[in-house]
């Protein structure tokens, strides 16, 4: 196993990006960091800067304004980096699929490793997704 991937198993630092969401998924992501769900037990901490991140948690419907910024941020993440799409919006644009401002779903723009469906997904679902991601890293 690549030493860089091995290091990630116990300390994945996350950076959360909202690309035009209703806020609910973002709040559930923050909820995972608070005492009841406490995702920190998997070594996940919010990173202070995108340059320290290993994992991008992306929510929202990828609207025209934010897509360009999101791409720029994606290019700045040090590799190896993983992307998790959270919520129906990020998966397929969900409710906003007919909107004039949301032309493309997330996985047509950047590669996505784990999809967590739900509108919003419960924190338990987000944690289950994270565990799957850790499995994926392990098997790489």
């Amino acid at each position, binding site marked *: 196993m690549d030493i860089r991937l091995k290091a990630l198993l116990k300390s994945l630092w996350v950076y959360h990006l909202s690309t035009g969401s*209703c*806020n609910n998924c973002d709040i559930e992501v923050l909820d995972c960091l608070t005492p009841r769900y406490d995702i920190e037990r998997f070594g996940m901490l919010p990173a202070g*800067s995108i340059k320290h991140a290993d994992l991008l948690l992306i929510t929202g419907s990828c609207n025209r304004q934010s897509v360009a910024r999101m791409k720029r941020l994606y290019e700045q993440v040090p590799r190896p980096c993983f992307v998790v799409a959270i919520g129906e919006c990020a998966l397929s644009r969900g409710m906003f699929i007919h909107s004039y401002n*949301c032309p493309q779903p997330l996985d047509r723009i950047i590669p996505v490793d784990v999809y967590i469906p739900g509108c919003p997904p419960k924190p338990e679902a987000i944690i289950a997704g994270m565990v799957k991601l850790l499995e994926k890293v392990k098997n790489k």
Partner: protein
Amino acid sequence: MKETIIPIGPYHPLQEEPEFFTLTVEGERVVDIDVRVGYNHRGIEKLSEMKTFDQSTFVIERICGICSTSHPFAYTRALEDIISMGVPRRARYIRTIIAEGERIHSHLLWLGLAGHFLGYKTVYMWAWKLREEILDVMEMLSGNRNNYAMFKPGGVRRDIKAADLPVALGKLDSIIPTLEMLRKAVLEDPVLHARTQGIGVLSKQDAIDFSALGPTARASGVARDVRKDCPYGAYDEVEWDMIVTANGDVFDKLVVRIGEVFESVRIMKACLLNLPRGEIDAGIADIPPGEGIGHIEAPRGETFHYVRSDGTNRPVRHKVRAPTFMNLPTFKTTVKGATLSDATIILAAIDPCYCCTERMAVRDPEGRTLGDGYDLIRLSQEKTARIKRKMGNK
């Protein structure tokens, strides 16, 4: 001294939503601020006009995840205004219960984030831990933690089971001691006093001039609350007090919000105890032509919806104004003169919600802003004509 411009955003680890601030600073002092929104724009008004009246409630709910009750509440009230009809009493009580539950979790969420902005993580963790208890109650009553989907034109979609009432009341009682502890910890903490008292003052006159709404106005001594001024739901049938303070600084906004959490628990308990029997849905079949407005007090202030109907099953125009739209311009007075380190908490103090507020402007290739909806309609017609020409139709 030389002016420097500090950009914050659109993606910043402190912000959960994308928004862009340009702070102009002279040394440590902020001399000007500019806010740019639009990173969350999803075209909800247009989407709502593409759906039927009943389907729209689900889209409207997703304007904002924190106000996922306030928007459908105002929207259904606008529809009921078009028909000029009332809602069954039991449905009004259930609506009030859900709306107050939302207020509690929203204010606790803000309290936590305020702690986070101040670097006071203990408050953040405690407030969010407490919020989970309320979300449990809401999940029990409505079936989901957020986005409750309880509202429909003319009533509510789901009834509250009699077996759930004592459990919900018990839960509400059990959070009171922790809430008391949190109130004491926050309001008597010298560190928090130092960071928030006298910071970001919005004077009463400014609050009136900017038409500030909700807790932002009430903290500045403007007694303005739709629940009292123009009662709806069950607010005129239960006892509660409006919390108003005089100073208008960040600390007073803290006091108002924590006080409101207690009042909301009181309202919720009163409604659960006195829940009347009867129908929960008035059974609206058609919406006649006409226009209606609905306004309610969301956790951040007055949410306003305007709906115009032409007698079909879709709205022809749906206009949404969220409270942050009115509260945002108060930055122009509150942030000016503050130090850079205080600016973050002042910007957070109005409890801004950008995904409610999103507006957009369209520019043509020459860089001119095309102002209103008519311009957009013209653009769309021109495009259709172009496509028709290309396809060989006349």
